Structures are given as structure tokens and as C-alpha cells.
């Protein structure tokens, strides 16, 4: 909107300038007609001054004068018609009026055809790599979605977009896309697995009838697939068929392609199911669990999920806290730790860090000052109190 205001003001300004110039022009005709006469008069003066300097002899000066004089006469003989100031009725007003209309209309039409008025400034500063990558994915998705809206029976389109939805954690749409691709292109193990995974994640870890059916088909297509067996085991567990679930899980433990991490996850399930079977209350498994839950493309292609980033940050913060516990004479470290907690939203931890820092740095006025100042700026609880006490 602001853009259009600016463009309108610019256009109006330009048209105004042009019209104003046109209106205020007086017929400077007499002066203009004398322009070349002035040049020749100057040439005559130049001849005189050259003569005075001795650069020309009297004879040369005389013939030069005669020559310039002839030019002056020629000029007078070839007198142009008078220059007029076009008043109303001469057609000039109409011509300028037409220009004043055509200029903005033409500019606007061309700009609408060529410009991209919707795009904002995008200075490099403030942009991050993730955002750029995400922008690219978003735009690609948007393009495919548009195509699919136009041609909803395009199986290839669904097939392309389904795993992307899955990676973007848009599980419901992913499940739908996998289902469409299966329907239009035929079932493949990859798509079946994708559908099952998306469906389970979309339902917060509940293996519903659709997911179960997909897992069964997958297993019949590729007997022995661990992810399918895992989902079926989960389905049994959730259906209350603990014995079946336990035997499924135990069978999985002996499957050849199990990694230690997967085994560990399964053992957790086994002990949980054993307790459930005894009637204990155990926490339900979260949506992200077990083998086969990792996106099919592998982790390397995936931009770190917010949860992963959070985990990484927390790890770094913990390491920093541990280091400061050992060596507290580092005001910059304390400030960084405080800032980290504030960013993570852990206000009380930040306040605790402030207290710890004051204790560790007591006796070092400069360092204390630095920490207090930063704490006040960040708005850490207890910072203001301390400053007012001073």
C-alpha cells in the first residue's frame, strides 16, 4: 500500500513539474534569436583583443572582421519566422495535456506488467540461512500445491509433495498426499511406509485402523520390515493386546537389522507393556518414538527441527553453566549464560545465575558492574532491586 502511495506521489510530482515548466515558460523568443548574434559579436571582440596582443596583423584582423561581419549579415538575411508563445487554441495545450495523461497511464501499465509490487525489501542483514532455505521449500510447496489445485488427479504431484509435508511436520497433509499418491500411482513400500508414519504422527502416536492396514500391506509386500512390525506391535499395545504386543516386541529384538538405539527403545516398550499388563500406570509414548519414525529420507537432508535445536541449545547452556561453576571469574560468561536462559524463557534460572554471578564475582567491582548492567538491560528478576540498593 505504501508503495502505491509513493509511486503516486512520484508520478504526480513529475507531471506537476512538467506542467509547471510548460505554464511558466515565457516566450524568450527575442533572446533566443539573438543567441548566434552574441557568438559573432564575441568573435569580433576576440579579433580586437588578438590585434591588441599583436597576435594578428592589422590586415589579417580586417579580413577576419569582414568574414564575421558576413556571417552576421547571412544570419540577418536568413531571419527565421517569429517564435510564438502558443496560447489557447493552437493545439499545444492539448498536446501537453495528452502527454500529462499518457505519461502516468503508460508508466502504470508498464509497471503492472513488469514490476513485482508485492515483494518487500530483503536486506541480507537479519536474514538467516534457515529462513532462506525454508523460504525456498515454502515456495516450492506453494507451486506444487497450486498445480495440484488445478489438477488434483496428478499422482506425481502428490508423490513429490508428500515426503516434503512429512519433513515440514505437516503430518495430516502428508498422510493425505501419500494416500492420494498410492491411489493414483499404485502402492509402493515407500509410499505405504510414508503414509503409515504420517498417519501415526498426525494422530499423536496412535496407530489407527488406516495406519494399521498400511503397515500390514507393507509387511506383506516386504516381509520382515521392522518399521511395519514395530507399528503393528504398537497397535496391539494400544489395543490392549499386551501379550501379542510383547511377543511382537521380543521378536523384533532378535531381528537382524536392529541398531542398539532401536533395541533400547524396544526394551523401554517391553518393560512398559509388562507393567501395563500388571495394571500399572505408565506414561504414554510420545508421537516420536521407535525405529521407523525417522523420516524416510534420513536426517541429513532435514533442516534441524526446532525441538532438535532446542536440545542443542540446552546442551550448550548446560556446558557453560558447568564451566562457570568451576571457574566463576568470567563476567562475560555469566552474562552469556543469563542471556541464554532469558532467550529460553527460563526467567527464574536467569535470576539464579545473577545471584550466583554476584557471589562468584564479589570483590571485583568492574566485573560486577558489567554483570549488573547487562542484567538490567535484559530485565532479569532481581537486577533492578540490586541497582536501586546501590
Amino acid at each position, binding site marked *: 500500500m505504501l508503495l502505491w502511495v509513493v509511486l503516486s506521489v512520484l508520478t504526480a510530482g513529475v507531471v506537476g513539474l*512538467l506542467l509547471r*515548466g510548460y505554464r511558466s515558460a515565457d516566450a524568450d523568443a527575442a533572446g533566443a534569436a539573438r543567441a*548566434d548574434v552574441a557568438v559573432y559579436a*564575441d568573435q569580433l571582440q576576440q579579433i580586437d583583443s588578438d590585434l591588441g596582443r599583436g597576435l594578428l596583423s592589422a590586415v589579417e584582423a580586417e579580413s577576419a572582421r569582414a568574414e564575421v561581419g558576413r556571417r552576421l549579415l547571412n544570419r540577418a538575411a536568413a531571419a527565421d519566422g517569429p517564435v510564438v508563445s502558443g496560447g489557447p487554441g493552437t493545439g499545444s495545450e492539448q498536446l*501537453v495535456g495528452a502527454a500529462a495523461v499518457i*505519461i502516468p497511464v503508460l508508466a502504470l501499465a508498464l509497471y503492472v506488467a513488469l514490476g*513485482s509490487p508485492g515483494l518487500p525489501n530483503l536486506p*541480507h*542483514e537479519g536474514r538467516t540461512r534457515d529462513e*532462506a532455505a525454508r523460504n525456498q521449500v515454502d515456495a516450492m510447496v506453494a507451486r506444487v500445491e497450486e498445480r495440484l489445485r488445478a489438477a488434483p488427479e496428478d499422482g506425481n504431484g502428490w508423490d513429490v509433495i508428500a515426503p516434503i509435508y512429512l519433513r515440514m511436520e505437516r503430518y495430516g497433509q502428508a498422510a493425505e498426499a501419500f494416500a492420494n499418491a498410492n491411489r493414483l500411482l499404485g502402492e509402493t513400500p515407500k509410499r505405504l511406509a510414508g503414509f503409515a508414519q504420517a498417519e501415526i504422527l498426525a494422530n499423536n502416536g496412535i496407530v489407527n485402523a488406516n495406519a494399521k492396514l498400511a503397515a500390514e500391506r507393507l509387511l506383506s509386500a516386504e516381509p520382515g520390515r521392522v518399521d511395519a512390525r514395530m507399528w503393528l506391535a504398537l497397535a496391539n499395545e494400544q489395543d490392549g493386546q499386551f501379550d501379542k504386543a510383547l511377543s511382537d516386541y521380543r521378536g523384533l529384538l532378535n531381528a537382524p537389522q536392529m541398531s542398539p538405539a532401536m533395541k533400547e527403545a524396544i526394551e523401554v516398550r517391553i518393560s512398559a507393556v509388562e507393567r501395563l499388563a500388571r495394571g500399572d500406570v505408565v506414561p504414554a509414548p510420545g508421537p516420536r518414538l521407535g525405529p521407523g519414525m525417522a523420516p524416510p529420507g534420513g536426517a541429513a537432508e532435514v533442516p534441524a527441527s526446532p525441538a532438535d535445536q532446542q536440545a542443542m541449545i540446552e546442551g550448550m547452556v548446560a556446558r557453560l553453566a558447568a564451566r562457570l561453576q568451576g571457574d566463576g571469574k568470567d563476567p562475560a560468561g555469566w552474562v552469556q549464560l543469563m542471556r541464554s536462559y532469558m532467550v529460553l524463557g527460563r526467567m527464574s534460572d536467569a535470576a539464579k545465575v545473577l545471584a550466583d554471578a554476584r557471589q562468584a564475582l564479589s570483590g571485583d567491582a568492574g566485573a560486577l558492574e558489567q554483570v549488573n548492567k547487562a542484567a538490567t538491560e535484559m530485565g532479569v528478576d532481581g537486577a533492578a532491586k540490586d541497582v536501586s540498593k546501590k
Partner: protein
Amino acid sequence: MIAEIGHFTLILALAVALAQMTVPMWGAHIRDARLMSFGDSAAVAQFGLLIISFLALTHAFVTSDFSVLNVVQNSHSEKPLIYRISGVWGNHEGSMLLWVLILGLFGSAVAVFGRNLPATLRANVLGVQASIAVAFLLFMLFTSNPFERVDPAPFDGQGLNPILQDPALAFHPPFLYAGYVGFSMAFSFAVAALIEGRIDAAWARWVRPWTLAAWMCLTLGIAMGSWWAYYELGWGGWWFWDPVENASFMPWLAGTALLHSALVMEKREALKVWTILLAILTFSLSLMGAFLVRSGVLTSVHAFAVDPDRGIVILGIMMFFTGGALALFAWRAGTLRQGGLFAPLSREGGLVLNNVLLSVACATVLVGTLYPLALEGVTGEKISVGPPFFNMTFIPLMLPLLLAMPFGPLMAWKRGDLRGVAQRLAFAAGFAVLFTVIVAAMTGPGPWLAPICAALGLFVLFGAITDLLSRARFGDVSRGEFLRRVVSLPRSAYGTALAHAGIGIMVLGIVGTSAYQSEKIVALKPGETAEVAGYQLLFKGIQPTKGPNYSEQIATFEVTRDGAAVTTLLPSKRLYNAPPQPTTEAGIYAAWTGDLYVALGDEQPSGAVSMRLYFHPLVRLIWLGAVIMFVGGAISLSDRRLRVGAPQRARSRPAAVPAE
């Protein structure tokens, strides 16, 4: 949003230029003063819009806004600020924007400073100028739009060719373009005069300042390009007869001829047809330069738009303007009246000789540049017309030009006294020969042509001084009178003398560095010493460092001469991050007698580093000469007479001249 404003103002500038092309010219036709004056405000508005557009693109480059395609393709977030700014014109689209900006600048300068022009001439000039702007704006908007956006925006750009990341090259294109585009003014004046059918001495007076301004800028622009090639390309050469260099040199030669023939036309109303033709051809040659570097016909650093379609559009623009102007010329040439007569030995005769030699030289360069291209186009055979061709054809044309140069300004108009002039120049010639003999005796043997050329260079230099002295009547008048006369000489006299002296100084530099340079290619290990031209260079080793957007290997040399420490040279090789490309940075020590120049090569398996050592005697005089020429032009441009003709001025200050 800012990029969009720039895009819009570019389009609006096109709309305004269309109006500027039609309204004032119609006004001139029906002699309507208000319609004619519409051109003035349109020219100013167009320039203002182009400034906004240019600033908007600059903003996108400075903030690294990678939603603008042109920024993505030609910039990188790591680039230092100055090269983010110079990156604006370091590419095809941006340089076209600079081109039309300068076109607008000249147009608005005519509108603002051209009050001394007859209203019809001014209106027609602005109309023709606007038609050139329309052609280029259409070309930009539809084939090379600098404001094209990308969505989604990539995270970083592809970077600017590292060898263009250099201070001299940052300012080389603006001056070069001011030169090229400045000649469009001469073209517009010529076409306007042909349209009006009025071509007289006054016209020549009016066109001269614009031609002079363009010529100055082109001189400096070419010199900067040469200076850059000298220290950045690592070969120590300053001119390669590369087609791209020739493309800028041809308009210079034609423009220099134009400056001189316009002088004859102003004084004597002679050479009218020729001057008009030169004005048209000079701009055509500028357009041809633009075509050559943008069409993909040539491969070079400058060939940033290797796109045959664009090339064809520029070719079309060039044909349209050249062909149209020449057709108009053919139609009107018959009506031009014969001007003043003159004897062959006269100032006019000298200027004609100048024009003949410069035009033939320009034609020579044209043949040497286009023939290989044409041959390749027709037969597919690749030949290289290198320096030998130009040395054999161009230099023989320049020798008589240099010899005649001091005579010209001293000759009288109409009928000159060659004997008298020769007498006045005897001292200059004597000094030149004496100097040359002394220096030749000191430097020892060189090529036989070198002392002759050096003597000519000195003759031109001393001839320029003689010109000033004789204008002030040195020897004829008392010393006080002489000093008074020296001070009150018209500025154009100083301008002429300086420009000619600049040529002489440049010739000395060219001769010195071409004939007497020492070159050595060696491979040194750290701790070893090499010697060139009496300097001992101790190679201390190589250190790696990091720049803002490159990593660098800097070599250190302790330079001594006869045991006395002279300097430390730090030549280096850089590897840029984006795009990853190596460049060499020569280490140069400027002594009074010449440049000591070290360029690094590759490391050998033995651990030694190959390097080229040069001593270029007097090489700086080449660029010093160009700067002196520029200053001479500027002084001449400030001469009162180039502004005369404004009626108000003549009325209000009738006695402004007697002091001279």
C-alpha cells in the same frame, strides 16, 4: 519496496523521455516557445527519475538485497562496501542504468546550462537526446532489466569477478561512460542542426564544450583502464590492443578529431560537412564499443552480457541512429554552403592534417579490431591481430602527427608563415634533440626508433611551452609586460598547451617503457636474491593472510640498490571466496626513473616460487600525461568563451573582455 520504486521510476523515465522526444521537437517545428520549453523540464524530470532509480539499485547492492536478481548474480554479502557500490555498474544491467543516467545528466545539463542556445536548437537537441534515451530504456526494460526480482530469494549472491574488485576499476566505467555518452551530445547537436538545416560557425561554438567534456572523461576513463591493466593483470603491460581497449580508443581518436575540426568550423565556417559527419561517427563508434562488449562477440572481462540477442538489439540501435543520422546528413549535405577558404599552410591546414591522420588512425584500429571478428564470422578461422599489426600501422601515423603538433597552434589562420613558425620552434627542437642525445648516451643502446620518438615527445612538450611563450610575446616585450600577458592569456590557450604537453609527456612514458624496460623471469627460494635494473631483491618468503573476502599469499622482498635499502615490496596472490578465483597483486615501487614491478607466479615442486621482475622506465608518465590532458581540457572548458552567447550576459557585461 525500494527496488520497486527504482523499477517504477525507470519506467516513468521512459514515459517522460517519450514525451521529451516528441513535444519539444513539434514545438520547434511550429515555433511554439512553450512547447519547446517543455523539453527543459522533461529533461530535468527524466534525470531526477533516473537518479532515484540508480540510487534504488545501489541500495539493493549495498544492503545485499538478494531478492533482486541482478544483485544475486553480481554481488556477495562478504564484499567490502566500496565493491558493493561499484558492483552496481560492474555488470551488464547496472552499467546500462549508469549509461542512461549519464545520458539523462547530459540532457538535463543542456536544459539547465544551455540557455545560450537558440530555443529551437535546444528543443531539437533535447528531442534527439531523448530518442537515444528511449531506445536504451526500452532495451533495458525488455531485455536487461536490473530490477528483476527473485522469489524466493537465495541466501547469498554469486559474487563479482574478483579482478574487477579494484579501486581503479571502480571508477573506470563512470568516466568511460561519461565519455561515450557525452559524445551523444555531439550527435544530438549534429542531428538537431541537420533537422533545422542551419549549420554555421555558432553551432560549432555551442557543440564544443559538450564534446570537450566528453573527451576529457573518455581520456581519463581509458587511462584508468590502462592503469588497472598495468598493476592488476600482472604482466606489467599498459596497453594490449585488445578489442575492448580499441573499442574505447576509436571514439577517442574520432572525438579528438572532432574537437579540432569544430575549432576550424567555429573560426572559419569551413569543414562543416566533415565536422557534422565526425560528430555522427564518433557516437556511432561509442555505440559500436557498447555492442562489441555486450554481444558476446568478444570474450573478455568486459563481456558481461554474453547474450547474442541483446547484442543484436544494440546493433539495431546503433544502425538506427547511425543510419538515420547519415540519411538526414545525405539529404541536407547539399544545402551546406562553402565556408571560408584557406591556404594549405595555415592553422586550418594543420587542423585538417590532424583530422586526416587521426581519422586514418581510427580506421586502422577499426580494421584491426573488426577484421579478425569478420573473418571468424565468415570462415570460422581464428586469427589474432596483435600488437605487431598496430605497431606497424598506427605508429607511422602518429609520428607525423607528433611532428606537426607543435606547429599547429603557432600557425596563423588562413595563411600561415611556416618559416616564421619553424624559427620560433627552433629552440624547442634543439632542446628536444639535445636532451635525447644526452639521455641516449647515458642509457646506452636501444631500438633505433626509440630516440626519434623520445625526441618527438620532447618536441611536443617544448612546443607547447613555446606556444604559450610566443602568445605572451616572450622576448618582444618587457619582463613585466610579459608576466602580465602570461597571466591574462585566455584559458583555452592554457588548455591547448596543457593537452599537447600531456601528449608529449605520454609519448615519453611510452617510449621509455616500451624500448628500455628490463624483464626477468626467475624462480627464487626464500633467502635468495635476484637483480633487475640495478636493484637487488631479497626474497624473504611467503606469508598467508586473510582479507575481507579472500585469502592471500603475500611475498616479502627487501629491495636494495648498491647496498642501500630502498623499499620493501609485498606482491601477493589472492584467492577470492566467491567466486573462487585467483588474482595477482603486483608489488610496485615507484622511483623517479621508473617502476620496479614484481608479480608472483606459481610455486615450483622444488619449493622455489617463480616470479616476474620488471623495471619500467618512466611508465608513470603515460598516466600523468593523461591526467594533464584531462586538466587541460577542464581549464579550456572553464574558458569564458565557451559559455558566451547568452544574451543576458552579453547585455549586462558588455565590457567583460578588454582585460584580455
